C-alpha cells in the first residue's frame, strides 16, 4: 500500500521535473553590448585647411602583454599600449577637433553614440587633461560645441591652439554623471569615467 501511494506521485514529479528542465535546449543568444564604447575617433583639421586626419582609439582589452590584434583592423594611429597615439601638429596654429564615439562590437552594425552623448549633455562631460610639459598648448570649446542646459560646454568640438615647439601627453575623458561640470583636473568632476583616451601631442 505504501508503494502504491507514494511511488506514483514521485514518478510523476520526476517526469515533470525532467520535462521542465529539458525543455530549453536552444543555444543562448549572444549578448549584444549596447552600452559599450569601443571606438573613439578624433578628427583633427587645421583651420583654413580642408585636410582632416583621423585618430582612432580602439578599445576592448589592450592587455599589458603583447598581443596579436587578429580581429581588429590595425591602423597607423591605433592606441597601442606603451606607445601612445601621436598627434602631430604645426606650431602657431589652430585646429578644429571633433570627437566621435562608436560601439563597433558588431562590425555589421556600428553604432554612432556621439549623438546620444550630445542629447544627454547634462549627464556627460568631456575633459582633456593636458600635462605641464605641453606648454603653450591649449584646448578650448569650439564655437560649434554643444552647450548643456546650464551653459557649460561639453567639449565634444574643440579648438586646439599651439604656440612653440613642444610635446607632451593629453588624456581625454568622457565622464558620466559628473558631480561638477567644470574643473581643472579629472577629480574635480567626480562621476564615473566612461572612457579614457591617452595620446601624445607633438607640436613641431
Amino acid at each position, binding site marked *: 500500500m*505504501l508503494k502504491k501511494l*507514494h511511488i506514483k506521485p*514521485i514518478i510523476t*514529479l*520526476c517526469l515533470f*521535473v*525532467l520535462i*521542465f*528542465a*529539458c525543455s*530549453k535546449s536552444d*543555444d*543562448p*543568444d*549572444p*549578448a*549584444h*553590448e*549596447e*552600452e559599450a*564604447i*569601443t571606438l*573613439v575617433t578624433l578628427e583633427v583639421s587645421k583651420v583654413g585647411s580642408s585636410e582632416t586626419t583621423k585618430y582612432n*582609439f580602439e*578599445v*576592448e*582589452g*589592450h*592587455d*599589458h602583454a603583447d*598581443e*596579436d590584434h*587578429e*580581429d581588429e583592423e590595425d591602423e597607423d594611429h591605433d592606441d597601442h*599600449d606603451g606607445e601612445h597615439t601621436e598627434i602631430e601638429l604645426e606650431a602657431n596654429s589652430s585646429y578644429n577637433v571633433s570627437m566621435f564615439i562608436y560601439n563597433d*562590437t*558588431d*562590425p555589421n552594425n556600428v553604432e554612432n553614440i556621439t549623438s*546620444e552623448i550630445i*542629447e*544627454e549633455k547634462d*549627464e556627460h562631460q568631456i575633459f582633456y587633461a*593636458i*600635462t*605641464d610639459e605641453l606648454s603653450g598648448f591649449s584646448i578650448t570649446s569650439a564655437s560649434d560645441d554643444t552647450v548643456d542646459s546650464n551653459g557649460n560646454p561639453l567639449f565634444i568640438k574643440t579648438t586646439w591652439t599651439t604656440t612653440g615647439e613642444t610635446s607632451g*601627453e593629453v*588624456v581625454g575623458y568622457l565622464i*558620466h554623471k559628473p*558631480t561638477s561640470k567644470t574643473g581643472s*583636473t*579629472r*577629480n574635480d568632476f*567626480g*562621476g*564615473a*569615467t*566612461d*572612457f*579614457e*583616451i591617452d595620446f601624445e601631442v607633438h607640436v613641431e
Partner: protein
Amino acid sequence: MSFLSFIAELLNLKLNKCKCSRCFTVPKTAVSISLLAACFCYGQKCDLKLEGQILDLHDNSPISAALIKVLDNDQAVFSNDKGFFILKNQCSGKIKLKISHLNCEDIYQELNLNKSVFKKFYLEHHIESLEEVIVEERKIKKLSTTANAYSLSDLQKDQYSGRGLAKALEQISGVNVLSTGNVISKPMIHGMFGSRVGIIYDGVQIENQQWGQDHAPNIDQNAFEEIRLIKGAGVLKYSGDTPGGVVVLENDLPMVNDSLYGKSILSGMSNGRGFNFVSSWTRSYNSGNYFKAQAMIKRMGDFSAPKYILSNTGTDENNISLTYGKNKILSHWKANFSYFSQEIGILRSSHIGNVNDLVHAIELASPTIIRPFSHQIASPKQSNKHYTAGIQFSKRNRSNGKLNAKYSWQRNNRKEYDVRRGELNNKPSIDLTLDTHDLFSNYQWKRSNWSLDSGVFLQIQDNFSNPFTGTRRLIPDYIKTELGTYFTASLSPSNDFSLGFGFRFGHQNNHVKKYYKNKRWNDENYQDQLGAFVIKEVLSQKLVEQRLIFNNLSVNTGVKFPLTEELKFSLNIFHTERAPDIAEMFSDGLHHSLATIEYGNPFLRSETTQKLVLNFEEKIGKFTYEISPYYTRGQNYIIIEPTGIEYTIRGAFPVWEYRPVNAIIRGFDLDLSLRLSDRIELKNNSSWIEGYEKATKTPLINIPPLTTTNQILFSFSNWKSFLMSLSSKTIMRQNQFPNHNFEASVVENGKRVNKLVDISTPPKAYHLLGMELHWGPYPLNSNKISLSLIFDNVFNTSYRNYLNRLRLFADEMGRNVMLQIKIYH
C-alpha cells in the same frame, strides 16, 4: 474588539482542554447516560439531527464505543462499531460536545447548529507505543548527535527580525558577516562564505546564486521558528559541500488541537527612518489539519554614517509564506509556498568608472555623492525575487521507521542595475533566473540506542541569463543535474556517549553554454583545450558547449562524551568535496564597486577540505565555558585574486581570476558565562581565526579579525519582566592580509603620477557599544505584549569594517535606535 474577544474565546477553549492522559482510569460505567432531557426551547427549532463519525486521528480507523455527550442538555450516545453516531432532537444554535473514549484524551468541541449535519471527529489514541512517537515528533530533531548545534533564542531572533539572517547569526561566536554596504550581508562561518555555507530552509538548500559576495541569501528568517547552525558540514542529509557550516531554518509542528495563535513584531528604526512589520499566524484543528501564514513588510530609507548620509542605501522588502498541512502524528503531509521580494539600493558613490576613479574614491574621506535623506531607491540597485513551492509527505511505521518524500521548486530572479546611459539605466545589467527542482526521499530507523538515516536526492538546476541586458553575461546559461545518496548512523551506547558516522555521494553534471570573446580566448590559449567544444562563432565570440562532471564524496565522523562529570567533550572530522561553482569556472564581467574585471577558470577541479573541530564545555558552579578549536585543510581551495591589469577604453582595470590553492584555516571560538546572581550575568564570546596559503604562507583574503564581545545582562528585583543588557564589541584590525595593492598611473593637475591603489589594507580596530532594554511580556487582553528598546553604536563611532566590500567608499552606519513591539496572539 470583536476580533480580540474571538481570540479570547479560543484561548479559553484551549484552557478547557482536559489533560487526562491515562484515560483508562476513568471507568466506563461511571458515565451515566441520561435519557432525553427536557429541552428548554424558547421558540427554537429542536428537531435537528447531528450525525457523526468518530475516527482515529492517526490512521483514520473508526472508533467504536466513544461517548458523545451534549454538555448543554446531558444528552449522550455511543458510537457504533463503524464509529457512527446520531444525536436527534437538537435545538438550533451553539452546542457543546464532549467526546470521550477509553485510551483517549477527551475532546471538547463547539458546534453551531442551524441544520442537520454530518461531521467527522478525530480522537487521538494515546497507546503506549505512540506516546514516545508523539513526544519525539513534537520536539525539534537534533541536527547531529556529535557536532554542536547553536541555536538562536526567541529574543535573539526577534531582535534581528528586520536586519537579515546574517546579522542575526552573527550573535553566535565564530560567525561573521560578509557584506556589501549595510543591507546586503551573508553569513561567514569559520572564515568561509557563499557556496561553502549551506542555508537549509524547510529541508532544502536555498539556491540563489550564493557564490557572489554581494548576493545575500534571499530568505526571510521570520518565517521560521527555529534557526540553528552547525560549524562544519555536519548535516549530510541536506548538504555535503559546505565545509564552512550549515544554517538550518525550520518550523515547529503545530499541535494537534483546535487553536489559533501567532506573533507580530513591529520595529521602527531611527537610522534609515524605516520600519519593519512581521506577522505570523497558525490555525490548527483537532483533525490534525493546520494552516500557517506569515508576512513581512519592510521599508527603509538611506542609512547614515555618523558624519554623512549614505545616499541610495534604502531597502524595500515584501515577503509572504503559506503552509497547509495535515499532521496525523503517524503520517504528515504539507504543502508550502513562499515569495520573497527585495529591492536594495547600493551606495551611489560606489559606482565608479575605472581605477582612476577608485584611487580618487579611496583618497577622499567621505563619499563623492552625498544627497539629502531619501526613501527612493535608484541605480545602482539590486532587485531580487525568490519563489519556493514544495510538497512533502512522511509516514511512520509501527517499527519506528519513518519514510519521507519531498519535492521542492525554487525560482530565483536576480536583477542588478548599474548607473547606465539614458534609457539603459532602467534596464538591468544582470538578469539571472535560476530554477531549481529538488526531489528527496529518505528513510529513518530508530532504536533506543542507535539510529540510521539514508536517502536519495535529485537536483535539477537551470540558469538563464537574459541576453537583453545589453552587457556581457556574468554567468552563462547552464543546466546542472545532481543525483546522489547519503547515509548517516549514530550510536549512543550510553546516555552521554555518542558516536556518529555518515557519508554523502553526489554525481554532478554541468551542461554549460558560454560565449567567450575571441580576445580572451586567444590571450588564454583556450583553443588547445577548449577548441573541440566550440559550436558556433558570432560577433567575434565563440559559443562553447561543455559537459563537466564531478563526483563528490563527503564523509563525517564524530564522537561526543564526557571527560569528567561536568566536562563535555566532542570531536568531529568533516571531509568535504565541493564541485566548483559555475561562477568560479565561468564568470566573466565587470564589478563596478571595486572596478575589477572578474574571470572564471574553466579548468578547476573539485575542492576538498578536511576540518577537525574539538569542543570542550564545562560548568563549574556559576561559571560555564565552551571552547572550540578547529583546523581546516583545503586542497584545490578556490580563491579569487588579482592577476594583472586590463586596459580598456574605460581605463585600467585590475583583473581578478579564480585559482586553486592549498589552504590552511584554523582558529577557535570561545564562549564564557558567569552567573553572578539570579539578576546578573556576564558573558563573553570571542573568536580568532587565521587562514593562509600553505606553500607561500600568504594570508587568505577576507578572514575576519579577532573579535570579542562582552555582555552584561541584568534585571531588577522590584521590576518584574525587565531585562537590560549592555554589550561591548571590539573588532581588532586584521594584520594578516594578502597585499593586492597595485599602482595606477594618473594625470593629476597637469602631471602624470603613479599612485598606489590601496585596496588591501584593512581598516583600524574599533569598538561598539550596544544597549538593550526589554520589557515584558505583559498581559494585554488575552494577548501578551512585550517591548524592546535597542541602541546600536551608542557612541556614534565612525568606523570601517574589513568584511564590507564597500569599505573603501564610506563609513559604516552610525547610531541606531530601534523600538520594537511584540505581540503574542
